[in-house]
């Protein structure tokens, strides 16, 4: 064991950073015997304050510490690792000293990291790589990161792995580092930085939080830094970034209000939604694709995939009769052809047995069965005024009108508690028109009713809940319109009652309603997507409703008059865009999450703050809840 003393060093210098296990692979002007020896790569500071990269062969070093390892260490932890030269000043020592490689940082022009980050090359004059080092333990990443504390670098355009030193001998202060070189992102591309900074403009709140979580107090320092000097007087990406960032910070100020008092400062952020993406509709599910999705026995295995396709583009009209039976849970997706035949047989028998139940009620029975009589009377009245202008249901003694009646009467027996409620005939008509067949139409209708049965509750609780949820969604997604509606006594959204009760049946033509329904039946992309359809329609009417200062009556009239004037593809696309806006909104509340059926912040401790803002409001009256919704910003002290 040799004695150890840093004082033995011939030159007064300080090791700032060391990396062990680095092989000298190539060095211009050195004999081959010097190469391929293991050593330590360091950043050292000379007594005059200048710094250099130094490589020392291992045989020059003895280390007395038993904590020695072959890994790197940073300067502030190196104290216990006393590295010294050999105690005896021998000729071997002199020879070893001669093998030290030194690269003054002031002269360093470029460096390059290759071979899976394990090789580093240095150059002090352009065109020549004077030194090549191979990192046997780990890789060069940490060394590079440390080096970048001392020299400001830029990546060359043609080679992502080559760094050009643009300024050497800078202080090793984080705030002096260029924003692009902070390495806060795993991807080291300019694009990432660009997208981050442009997001500042559009989503200042979210982006700032993201960035601050990584940057803490650095952002402003970077701004100050770039505010004072440009790079070589030339406007480059970094400068653009800084400009955008400055603008973004003022945008952030626009959306915040600061209340000062003697003891504290309250900063309230008025959250805004991220921009709405424009999502084009897809093409309808084709016959070929549909057939391709079934295995040889007729099973549909990729159920989610099929639903995705249908959500994107709907279903080609020719295969609607087949596909709808699956969407409406008449046929299970994974059933084979033979299983389907059995299901058809069983369901046909079941249907006709229920039909027989009411068909066999005699007139005298009926006269003593008022509940049945009332239902029958309602059904008769409604089928006679359901889509009678459509050729399929037009004219006196139209057999299809009779089919509507038979199916609805059988449904009364199928679900006597619910019975017949106005609106059901509207829901059934397109199904019968498409399927033609009484039994198929009945079971598809029953499947559809499963999805919307709560619309027809005796106490209308389901409708009221949906209208309330719609109001909540609108308040979040289109707050200015929600505010206008509330100011016109229309915050209860009752003017959307018809839309919701029969899923927009009265608002669209037969072909459009078929498209809308099949998309909604997929249950994608979230729960209650039909409410986002409402939001999309209202959003398109926002300017009219607000600019003309429509009141209680005009709002209802305007909404009722939209019937048959709506563009289904545009609405679907807008609704999906709104969905994505909500999903990427940083201030999304649990209330909205619950409506859309997505996990609440309770599962995400980072969002606790929001949770407390929007917890279950219980039976509060809507007015009070509106007030709370509007005040639902972030309050931070």
């Amino acid at each position, binding site marked *: 064991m040799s004695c150890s003393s840093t004082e033995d060093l011939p030159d007064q210098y300080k090791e700032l950073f060391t990396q062990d296990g680095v092989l000298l692979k190539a060095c211009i002007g050195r004999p081959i015997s010097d190469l391929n020896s293991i050593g330590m790569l360091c950043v050292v500071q000379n007594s005059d304050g200048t710094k250099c990269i130094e490589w020392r062969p291992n045989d020059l070093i003895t280390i007395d510490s038993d904590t020695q390892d072959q890994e790197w260490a940073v300067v502030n932890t190196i104290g216990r690792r006393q590295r010294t030269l050999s105690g005896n000043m021998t000729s071997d020592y002199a020879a070893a000293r001669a093998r030290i490689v030194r690269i003054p940082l002031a002269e360093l022009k470029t460096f390059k990291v290759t071979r899976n980050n394990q090789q580093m090359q240095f150059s002090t004059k352009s065109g020549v790589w004077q030194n090549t080092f191979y990192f046997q333990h780990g890789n060069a990443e940490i060394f590079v990161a440390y080096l970048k504390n001392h020299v400001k670098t830029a990546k060359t355009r043609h080679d992502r792995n080559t760094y050009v030193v643009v300024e050497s001998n800078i202080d090793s202060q984080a705030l002096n580092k260029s924003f692009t070189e902070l390495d806060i992102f795993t991807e080291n591309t300019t694009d990432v930085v660009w997208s981050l900074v442009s997001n500042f403009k559009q989503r200042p709140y979210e982006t700032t939080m993201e960035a601050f979580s990584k940057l803490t107090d650095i952002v402003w320092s970077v701004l100050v830094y770039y505010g004072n000097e440009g790079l070589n007087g030339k406007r480059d990406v970094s400068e653009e970034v800084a400009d955008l960032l400055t603008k973004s910070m003022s945008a952030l100020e626009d959306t915040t209000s600061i209340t000062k008092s003697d003891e504290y400062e309250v900063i309230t952020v008025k959250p805004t939604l991220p921009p709405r993406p424009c999502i084009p509709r897809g093409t309808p599910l084709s016959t070929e694709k549909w057939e391709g999705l079934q295995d040889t026995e007729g099973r549909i295995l990729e159920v989610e995939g099929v639903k995705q396709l249908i959500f994107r583009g709907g279903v080609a009209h020719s295969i609607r009769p087949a596909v709808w039976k699956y969407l409406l849970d008449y046929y299970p997706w994974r059933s084979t052809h033979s299983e389907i035949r059995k299901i058809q047989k069983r369901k046909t028998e079941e249907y006709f047995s229920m039909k027989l139940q009411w068909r066999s009620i005699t007139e005298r029975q009926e006269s003593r069965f008022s509940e049945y009589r*009332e239902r029958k*009377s*309602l059904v008769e*009245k*409604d089928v006679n*005024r*359901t*889509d*009678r*202008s459509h050729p399929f249901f*037009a004219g006196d003694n139209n057999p299809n009108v009779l089919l509507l009646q038979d199916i609805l009467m059988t449904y009364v027996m199928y679900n006597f508690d619910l019975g017949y*409620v*106005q*609106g059901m*005939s*509207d829901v059934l008509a397109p199904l019968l028109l498409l399927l033609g067949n009484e039994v198929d139409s009945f079971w598809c209708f029953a499947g559809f009713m499963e999805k919307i049965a709560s619309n*027809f*509750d*005796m*106490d*209308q609780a389901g*409708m*009221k809940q949906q*209208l*309330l949820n719609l109001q909540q969604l609108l308040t979040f997604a289109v707050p200015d319109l929600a505010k206008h509606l509330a100011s016109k*006594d229309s915050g*209860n959204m*009752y*003017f959307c*009652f*018809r839309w919701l*009760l*029969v899923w927009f049946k*009265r608002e669209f033509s037969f072909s459009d309603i078929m498209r809308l329904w099949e998309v909604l039946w997929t249950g994608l992309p979230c729960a209650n997507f039909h409410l986002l359809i409402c939001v999309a329609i209202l959003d398109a009417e926002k300017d009219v409703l607000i600019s003309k200062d429509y*009141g*209680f*009556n005009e709002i*209802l*009239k305007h909404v*009722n008059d939209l019937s048959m004037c709506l563009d289904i593809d545009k609405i679907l696309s807008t609704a999906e865009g709104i969905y994505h806006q909500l999903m990427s909104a940083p201030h999304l509340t649990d209330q909205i999450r619950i409506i859309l059926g997505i996990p609440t912040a309770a599962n995400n401790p980072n969002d606790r703050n929001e949770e407390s803002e929007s917890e279950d409001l219980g039976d509060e*009256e*809507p007015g009070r809840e509106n007030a709370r919704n509007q005040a639902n910003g972030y309050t931070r002290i």
Partner: protein
Amino acid sequence: MAKTYDYLFKLLLIGDSGVGKTSILFRFSEDAFNISFISTIGIDFKIRTIDLDGKKVKLQIWDTAGQERFRTITTAYYRGSMGIMLVYDVTNEKSFENIKNWIRNIEENASADVEKMILGNKCDLDSKRQVSKERGEQLAVEYQIKFVETSAKDSLNVEYAFYTLARDIKAKMEKKQEASNPPGARGGTHQLKSNDQQRKPPSWLSRCSIL
């Protein structure tokens, strides 16, 4: 915008499903009839301005879904109504019996002074009649409400019914006005003479729970 009327009256059509509320309204507002009407979902209204004793009276007539289930929603639109048409179908006994329920519904909720009228619709369908005109008249006397049989299809008594209801409202209003404005101080505007909907619901509506 220049005001094109002297009075605005809000009227309401109520009654069982399928008695012809929408047909009556369509006849009055468009002077037309369509055999293949669709059922009313939710609520809608139509406007017609009539001339009444030299005054332009704008009638805003609200049409509601008849099924009882929807009543909690439709009553939200009752606020500010000054006249109510209670409609039954002369070919449907049940709808006539239910007039009592509808009246009770109004009495339970409405201010006592809302003008009412009973209409026995579909009187053109004599062969299917289940409710005689006399029974209708008897009921009206019982409740001291005006009564008329109508046919939206044949355009019988529809105009008369609306004019009568409007005239009664106007008379009641002018009487009230006179009472509140002593003779000599007349000519002041009154709250009904305005485009705005009435903000303050009558007492019977304030008790309607909305959601």
